[in-house]
Structure formats: C-alpha cells, structure tokens
C-alpha cells in the first residue's frame, strides 16, 4: 500500500481542523472532485469526533490518521486510537423519518459515514481501534 499521509495528534476537538484539512488535501491530490472531498471530510469529522468524545473516557490519548492507496487504487483513510475497544459500526441506524418531537438527538454521525463512504471497516488490532473509511476512485461518488 502506498502511504500518502500520516498524522498523529492528541484526541481533542482543537485538533479536528488540522486532521480534516490534511485529509481534504490528500483527497484533492488524488483528484477527487469538490463534492466528494466535502463528503470525505464530513465522514472523517464524524469518525474523529466520536473518538475525541468517547475513546479515552476523559483521559488523554492520541489519534493517528493514515491515508493510503490500496492495490485496487481505492483511497483508505485509516483512523487509529488506543482507547476502549469500540466498533462504532455496531450501532443501529437512527430513525430518519421520526418527526421533530420524536426524533432522537444524536446517532447521525455514524449513519452519515455509512451513507457517504463506499465502504467502512473496523478492526481491533492489539490495543488499537482501527476504522477504515474507503473511497473508490473510479467514480466521483457512490
């Protein structure tokens, strides 16, 4: 796999922008259009904010982002943390048809990741959570 980017910052909200800017830059260099870059950035934000909020349960820790191309020329955005083992993909989908009063606040982040990415994979490797956002290159969008 060809590694395009490696960034490691503390798992704090103030590092959201440095992460997403680096990921967007990487997607731009791979020739994705503006719309797809925005979708990649959104999926990355959702995954990162989830980790910032929950992975270290109030303790300090780091997040590492690795962007790479796999042998099928797909863009893989791998997001690693050493927090509590958590597969965000195991969560159920929100009811997107409920009205204002019934609609639950939250749960939309992971839903958006699933909708916008071509594939999403989770693995627990040793002491790390590894979430991969996968984007096909041959077409502009899903």
């Amino acid at each position, binding site marked *: 796999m060809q590694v395009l980017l490696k960034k490691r910052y503390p798992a704090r*909200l*103030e590092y*959201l*922008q440095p992460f997403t800017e680096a990921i967007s830059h990487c997607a731009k260099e791979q020739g994705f259009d503006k*719309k797809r870059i*925005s*979708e990649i*950035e*959104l999926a990355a*934000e*959702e995954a990162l*904010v989830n980790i*910032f909020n929950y992975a270290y349960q109030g303790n300090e820790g780091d997040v590492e982002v690795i962007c790479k191309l796999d042998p099928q020329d797909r863009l893989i955005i791998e997001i690693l943390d050493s927090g509590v083992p958590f597969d965000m993909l195991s969560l159920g989908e929100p009811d*997107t*048809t*409920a*009205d*204002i*009063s019934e*609609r639950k*606040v*939250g749960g*939309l*982040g992971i*839903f*958006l990741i699933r*909708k*916008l990415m071509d594939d999403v994979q989770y693995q627990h490797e040793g002491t790390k959570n590894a979430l991969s956002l996968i984007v096909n290159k041959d077409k502009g969008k899903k």
Partner: protein
Amino acid sequence: MEISVRKEKNVSVVSVTGRMDAVTAPEFEKNLSELMSKGEKKFLVNLAGLEYISSAGLRSILVIAKQSKAGQGEVIFSGLRGPVEEVFKISGFHSIFKIFESEEMALKQI
C-alpha cells in the same frame, strides 16, 4: 462560522455562514437558545452562506427545533445548497422541517 440576526416583524431571521461543525455548532445552539429565553418564538434560519454541516450541526438544529416546538414556536429554513442540502436530505431533515428556496418565500409562510 458567522451568525447574524435581524428582526422582520415577529420573526428572527438568523443568517449562518461558513462551517457548522463540531467546533462551531455549540455557538449556534447557544445563540438561538438565548434568543428563545428572551421570548423569541419564530425563527427563519437562512443557510445560503453555509458551506458545510456535520452531524454536530444537525444535532444543534434539532435541539433548537425541539426547544422551540415545546414553547409553541417554529424554526424554518431557507437557502440550502450543495453539501448542506445533501446532508439535510440524507438525514431526513428535509421531511421534518419547512425549507424554502429563498428568505423572501420563507417570510411569506411563517
């Protein structure tokens, strides 16, 4: 993100520009919540200048809409475009909120 508010009769017209993400969404929520606590009930949120919204922004919008509905108020939207419109559609926000193409059209309906 920049927020500006002006009054059109009994409607607070809130224009939001820039990016509504996990960093900036709490500011939107705080602003509108304060207006509600001052007695404002009707809000038209103009998102024509909003370039990006994440689930944190949607969450803040939903919190405000729930709060407003509980106080017999209303929150409607205008000017959605590009990624913001797409995210509203995917999330089902298009069917739970009244959304108008322009501020003028929205003001006639509220």
